[in-house]
């Protein structure tokens, strides 16, 4: 039995109203990648915040033993000194500083006291970037590189701190499949060649199965079990069972499609970038969707899917937009969001926190925000009616909230997403554009969202769904369009679509693009 690199013994952490961690123990060997999985709110992030010193020694019960010493971290810097670096889900980059400046932020390369050694800064930066295969100039501003590369910079930043244990909280939630794979391979490489261990928190079970040596499942603030690759067989159903505490037979609800008349047609849709207006973001896109149909739009991040949806929805995104939209066969002009809403379109944004919800406002007021005309008379709001509406949706979508007066920022991700859906369902659209409807929410909530989507389709709504998770599209959609570099490069029926075919289409298309 080897001595573990780090051991967390009987950790209990309580907040004024809840017990977030209840007697949790966790250990990690050297050269190990350990995945933490669990539903949202299970306590994964809290556990990692305890480990990294975000919650100081004394604010929790239990011990952290690192390399045989009991640690008493008071702040993040203390754990970093020991070589523990945490990379949070929301990246903490300064957009208007260069890659190199960001990489050494708080850990500057200096000559003398407080004076930055710029030559060494950029030299070292290039060296670390080489190490992780990030091919950019260290002088590039962080705002000009994609999320995937920003994530790489975070990792380089950790390397620059002589990391021994890397903690990654949902590192791939914003990445496309190839960037995500690159990141995971990097972790494997670190383990093998540099002896760096990692703890990874992820909702994407296929990634966990791919990368982890051990998997610890946390539920309701308690450790349920730890699976070991050398002992247990890693399968997704096995993990899901542990996470939700019951067997999940089906990841996607069953629906018999009842496809009716055509609802939405888009022809020769062109959209240019709002700032660089010679850059075509959506290129000659034509597609259609029927009532009662769930249509998927697959593609990598940056393929133009969100831009397509937002440009259709009252031209929220883009300039020099041209093309034809037909609703139920009639061409329509949708120049503003309110026109789009009254034409029967709803767009459920991919980023519920920054673009979808008013976080510091109640469930009730968020639900009615897009349909205030329904609860008003001559500009004056009818609060009784508003309460009734909110109550109704809280019940039908089973939104878990103490009351409709609760601020949505206090709800879990899954319930926030349901509030967002409720808002748009109450607008009573015929066509729903759902952009990443299950991003960053746990398996149980995902299933509930899928059920809602199926119910909407069964009611005869037309649903267009953008998702970066291919299994989700394959599980939910009747038909899938594949987008790449702003164009639609293929259309697949449910029966013929597989992950391999779609990825292959995208790879072929981007290869053609680079060749030409």
């Amino acid at each position, binding site marked *: 039995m080897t001595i573990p690199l780090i051991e967390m013994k009987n950790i209990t952490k309580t907040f004024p109203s809840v017990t977030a961690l209840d007697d949790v123990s966790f250990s990690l060997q050297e050269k190990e990648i350990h995945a933490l999985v669990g539903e949202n709110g299970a306590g994964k992030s809290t556990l990692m915040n305890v480990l990294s010193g975000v919650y100081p020694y004394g604010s929790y019960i239990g011990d952290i033993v690192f390399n045989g010493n009991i640690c008493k971290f008071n702040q993040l810097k203390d754990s970093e000194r020991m070589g523990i670096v945490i990379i949070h889900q929301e990246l903490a980059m300064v957009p208007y500083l260069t890659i190199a400046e960001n990489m050494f932020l708080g850990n500057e390369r200096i000559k003398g006291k407080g004076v930055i050694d710029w030559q060494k800064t950029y030299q070292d930066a290039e060296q670390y970037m080489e190490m992780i295969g990030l091919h950019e100039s260290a002088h590039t501003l962080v705002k000009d590189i994609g999320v995937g590369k920003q994530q790489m910079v975070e990792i380089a930043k950790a390397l620059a701190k002589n990391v021994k244990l890397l903690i990654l909280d949902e590192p791939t939630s914003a990445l496309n499949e190839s960037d995500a794979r690159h990141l995971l391979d990097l972790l494997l490489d670190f383990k093998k060649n540099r002896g760096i261990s990692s703890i990874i928190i992820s909702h994407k079970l296929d990634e966990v199965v791919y990368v982890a040596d051990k998997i610890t499942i946390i539920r309701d603030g308690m450790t349920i079990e730890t699976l070991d690759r050398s002992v247990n067989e890693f399968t997704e159903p096995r993990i899901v069972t542990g996470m939700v505490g019951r067997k999940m037979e089906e990841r996607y609800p069953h629906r018999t499609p009842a496809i009716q008349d055509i609802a939405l047609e888009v022809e020769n849709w062109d959209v240019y970038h709002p700032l660089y207006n010679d850059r075509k973001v959506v290129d000659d896109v034509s597609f259609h969707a029927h009532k009662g149909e769930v249509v998927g739009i697959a593609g990598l991040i940056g393929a133009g899917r969100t831009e397509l949806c937002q440009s259709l929805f009252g031209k929220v995104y883009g300039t020099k937009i041209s093309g034809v939209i037909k609703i139920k066969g009639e061409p329509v002009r949708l120049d503003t969001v309110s026109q789009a809403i009254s034409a029967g379109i709803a767009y459920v944004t991919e980023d519920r926190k920054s673009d979808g919800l008013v976080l510091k406002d109640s469930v009730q007021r968020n639900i009615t925000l897009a349909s205030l005309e329904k609860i008003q008379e001559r500009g004056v709001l009818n609060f*009784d009616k508003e309460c009734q509406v909110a109550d109704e949706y809280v019940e039908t979508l089973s939104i878990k909230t103490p009351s409709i007066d609760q601020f949505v920022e206090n709800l879990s991700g899954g319930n926030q997403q349901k509030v967002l859906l409720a808002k748009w369902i109450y607008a009573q659209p015929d066509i729903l554009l759902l952009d990443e409807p299950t991003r960053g929410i746990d398996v149980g909530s995902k299933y509930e969202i899928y059920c809602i989507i199926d119910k909407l389709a069964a009611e005869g709504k037309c649903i267009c769904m953008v998702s970066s998770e291919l299994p989700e599209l394959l599980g939910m959609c009747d038909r899938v369009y594949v987008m790449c570099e702003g164009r639609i490069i293929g259309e697949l029926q449910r029966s013929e679509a597989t992950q391999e075919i779609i990825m292959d289409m995208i790879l072929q298309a981007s290869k053609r693009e680079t060749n030409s």
Partner: protein
Amino acid sequence: MSIREKIGGILKQYIMVIILVAILLIFQITTSGALLTSVNLFNLVNQNAYGMILAVGMLICVLTGGNVDLSVGSLLGFVSACMATFMTEYGMNTYLAIFLGLLIGILAGVWQGFWIAYVRVPSFITTLAGMLIFQGGILLVLKGGKTIAPLPESFNVLASGYIGTAEASGSICLAVGVMIALVFVFFQIKNYITRKRNGYSVNRIGSLLLSCIIVSAVLIWAFAKIAEQRGVPTVLILVGLVALIYYFVTQKTVIGRHLYALGGNAKAAKLSGIKTDRILFLAYVNMSLLAAVAAVAYSARMNAAAATAGTGTELDAIGAVFLGGASASGGIGTVGGTLIGALIMGVLNNGMSIMGLGTDMQQAVKGLVLLAAVAVDVISKQRTLDPIMNRIRLVFFNRL
């Protein structure tokens, strides 16, 4: 809920009211009772009416997302100068002059709103420019800054007059006070009944009655005190009207809801079909209109239009809004809170003047109270003091 938590909750909710009462008590003692005399209450109302009107307008700007308007003081002075010139130099009818003054206010608002909402010049810059422009305007209209005084009596009476004659003033004033109290109680009870009927959470009937009794008592007492003077000041009615209208608009109407949504999350508001540009534009038009309304109250009280009129009032207005619990990032704040904030500012000014403190002291004290009051508000909204104490320990002792 334990008693301690309950008290904590009440403290958090009414912290600014408590601060106001504390300040009143302190001055009541230090001025040996001169603060809450009938004549001083009368003055307090007259001195602070325009400040309250400006603060309500400022609240609307702050609600849109932490925007402020630095130009309102200068605009107030400019409108005041214009109206005075119209009336004295051109012999214009009082009502026409006021109408033109309000029109100038609206036009100034359209000008600033255009740059802020449609061209997207930051509000701070636009209104800083506006401040300079209107300052220039004042000097131009007043021909290098000559004070115009006195103003026609028909103008002054509108905003510095009072309703009621010397003999009947007491009863009329008291009647107004009782009426307002009755209306307040009526709406409180109506609200309680509808909420209860629909099965929503309500406060205990006891606390409802208690709040009704306290508010009614304070209202009737204040009106009775003021009544000992000449009657109900017309500006009080003006302020009451403004407060009621803006309370109604912000809390009960679609446009009010749009305003809060814009400040709470501009992107989400836009994606919900709200015309966010238009709301922002209207907020600034409204601010300038209210600045013009305040200009009427201000000039009538001063019985003059001077080059220094309104200087610095924008800062008092901004202070009042934040004292009133508004969020600097927008989307949070109420008309009631803002009025309390404005009262705190007003009582400070008034109390220190009675005590005979110099302007130097007055300014510094106001600054400190603003800082302290908002700090108390911020701290009381956090769950415990621990995070703050930890931060302080870290900074000063480099350990926890």
